[in-house]
């Protein structure tokens, strides 16, 4: 009898402590992430436009906000821009990060400087970096244009004003900014890899590319999962450089979901539509994150089997 009581206490203790430990984070996440999301879903069913006197009181309009958004050509363009932006920035910056990590994961003299060089963009605040890039993109004498000319580029130079280049310009800045950051995760991953498998592979006479593809890359799968998830969320959420470089222009050519959301809420004062946009944005991120995770876990099951 006495023995079971002791056990029960121990059980209770061991089950309380973890809960207590995550409680502060849990509350903060609920208050600042979950609750605003719920609020946004609720608000997205109402017409509330603060700078139109008769729409200053919220009225229930069902799915009207969503219907209007999906009918609007601007929203179509914004959605399409966002897909191109994320589909370009995420894989390119992750692949670059992986290559950078392979490059700097060696014991050469002065490797510290090269590592610093790759990581440097991460230290700069995005707004300062974008301001510098704004001058790099200047036609005729901007550094980026001079650099391209040196490689024989003679195309248009008006990067932030040309509708065919503006989205590419903001993507270039985003990739330049984030690749070094993701490199750090890959570098940490590479340095923690077990050495015995590589020794075994060497004995079996595996060449460099085979080793990379069959051993290094699969072993870094967890890192890749983490990095792609972060990269994807960042791709949707980091828009500081768009404010500086293009303001979504010219003619919405570089307008993406979160920038459009900001315009809707703070410039157009349309609370209902901006809430609907928030819901769409959250849905996008959720679908990808869960999808990415599920895909990665399924692969693991197959391997174990």
């Amino acid at each position, binding site marked *: 009898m006495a023995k079971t009581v002791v056990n029960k206490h121990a059980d209770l203790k061991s089950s309380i402590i973890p809960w207590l430990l995550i409680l502060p984070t849990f509350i903060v996440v609920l208050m600042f992430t979950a609750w605003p999301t719920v609020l946004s879903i609720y608000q997205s069913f109402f017409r509330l436009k*603060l700078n139109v006197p008769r729409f200053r009181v919220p009225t229930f309009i069902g799915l009207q906000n969503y219907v209007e958004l999906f009918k609007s050509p601007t929203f179509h363009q914004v959605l399409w821009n966002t897909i191109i932006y994320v589909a370009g920035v995420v894989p390119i910056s992750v692949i670059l990060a992986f290559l950078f990590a392979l490059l700097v994961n060696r014991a050469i003299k002065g490797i510290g400087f090269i590592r610093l060089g790759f990581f440097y963009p991460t230290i700069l605040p995005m707004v300062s970096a974008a301001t510098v890039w704004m001058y790099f993109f200047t036609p005729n004498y901007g550094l980026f244009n001079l650099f391209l000319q040196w490689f024989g580029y003679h195309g248009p130079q*008006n990067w932030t004003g040309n509708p065919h280049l503006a989205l590419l310009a903001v993507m270039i800045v985003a990739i330049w900014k984030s690749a070094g950051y993701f490199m750090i995760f890959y570098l940490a991953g590479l340095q923690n890899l077990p050495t015995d498998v590589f020794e075994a592979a060497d004995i079996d006479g595996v060449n460099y590319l085979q080793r990379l593809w069959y051993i290094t890359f699969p072993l870094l799968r967890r890192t890749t999962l983490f990095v792609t998830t972060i990269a994807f969320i960042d791709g949707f959420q980091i828009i500081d450089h768009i404010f500086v470089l293009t303001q979504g222009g*010219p*003619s919405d050519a570089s307008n993406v979901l979160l920038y459009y959301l900001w*315009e809707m809420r703070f410039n*157009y004062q349309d609370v209902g539509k901006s809430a609907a946009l928030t819901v769409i944005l959250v849905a996008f991120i959720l679908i990808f994150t869960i999808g990415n995770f599920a895909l990665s876990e399924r692969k693991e099951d197959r391997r174990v089997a």
Partner: protein
Amino acid sequence: MKMFSKKLLLVLLVLVVSFSIVFAGCAPKKAPQQNNNQNNQQNQQQNTQKEVTIQIYFPVSTLAPEAKLLDSYAAAFHKEYPNITVKPVYSGGYTDVEKAIKTVINGGGEPPALAIMLATDLYDLIDAGYIVPLDSYINSMPNGQAYLNDFFPQFLANSKYEGKIWSIPFQRSVALMYYNADLLKENNLPVPDSWQSLAEVTSKLTKKDKDGKVVRWGIEWPSGWPYWLFQPLAIGNGTNIFKGPAQMNFNDPRVIEAVQYYIDLSHKYHAMPEGVQKNWNTAVPDFENGRAAFILHSTSGLNGILQGSKFNVGVMAVPGKKKGTYATVTGGGNIYMFKNVPKEKQDAAWKFIEFVTQPKYVADFSINTGYIATRKSAYDLDVMKQHLKEVPQAAKVKELLKYAGPEFSCHDLAQVRNIFHKYLQAAYNGQMTPKAAMDEAQKEAQAILKDFQNP
């Protein structure tokens, strides 16, 4: 038993969390009440001691030269009214002030008593119920009408709505064409006086090196945020891009012709970079370093450009289509007074408006910044006369005011302006013809503005 205790824990957890949410949900509602209580207490104290502190938001950064000037005006004001303390808050740019105020008001807090915001924000601020009209204060002045009439009517145009005055002009500018007078002289070219001569002169001043690369543009005309510097073209063709606060004029044939003229300057005359020019920041150094013979910019840059250029700088309004006609457009910010601010603070705020718009401060601000003095009587002061003698360009700027048309402003400005920008840039970039672009802009804008046509 084990299951039970886990369940109990979960229930407890949910209770704690939901309690905290309810608490969090209540908190913002409680805060303003507490604020009000505090305000009431403060007001009671003020009634006995008559001590008032008001805030005024300025759209400049703390390090800007304007900040020093404004600090000195606030200090001078405190000397004259020892019971009133004015606290200037330097928030960055116009959009930062706007953001800060919207955040405070949406969050249920008390806005500052005063703020300098864009003159064109008028309708949005009224529609959102943020500001109060100033007529009662003006009428209570011994010579209120004379005070109003002393402001240049071009600047006061953005203050009137439904027969009331909602703002007082403060830091005002016009769009200005700067030209390298030495280059004109060297090449024996006249100062342009029409669209045609502007195109010809700037075309001749465009210089290429032997590889065909442009080393000097005839003219740079920023169009990253294009409506403002486009307006002088529409005005110079005898119209404007809007008719009223809910009626646009984007597809007027004369506006379309103006869009075509801008495109012609690059495509036909090769005097200007093609497409949308994102050069608001680089146009001034380009001009100062001789990489552009003409630029369009604001008068607020005048002092800097005069200091930075090693040649004779000419300033003028934008030539109109017809020979001998000119046009420009007003810009800049006015002082607004906010709703939901205790009466004592509003009264004190008005005293500060009166104080800081006295001719001597208006003149001082203009001399030190390059903004145009907003009151006629400021130009009668000796310091101002002296300044205009020393800086003839500043005298010229004052003369240009007679060519100035009103700056584009309407209900739901941000959205309508974005529509105009979108299609104007599409035309500049050759994605649409000027006519198709302006027709579409007009259609979309009027669809937005239908909410305001029958209030």
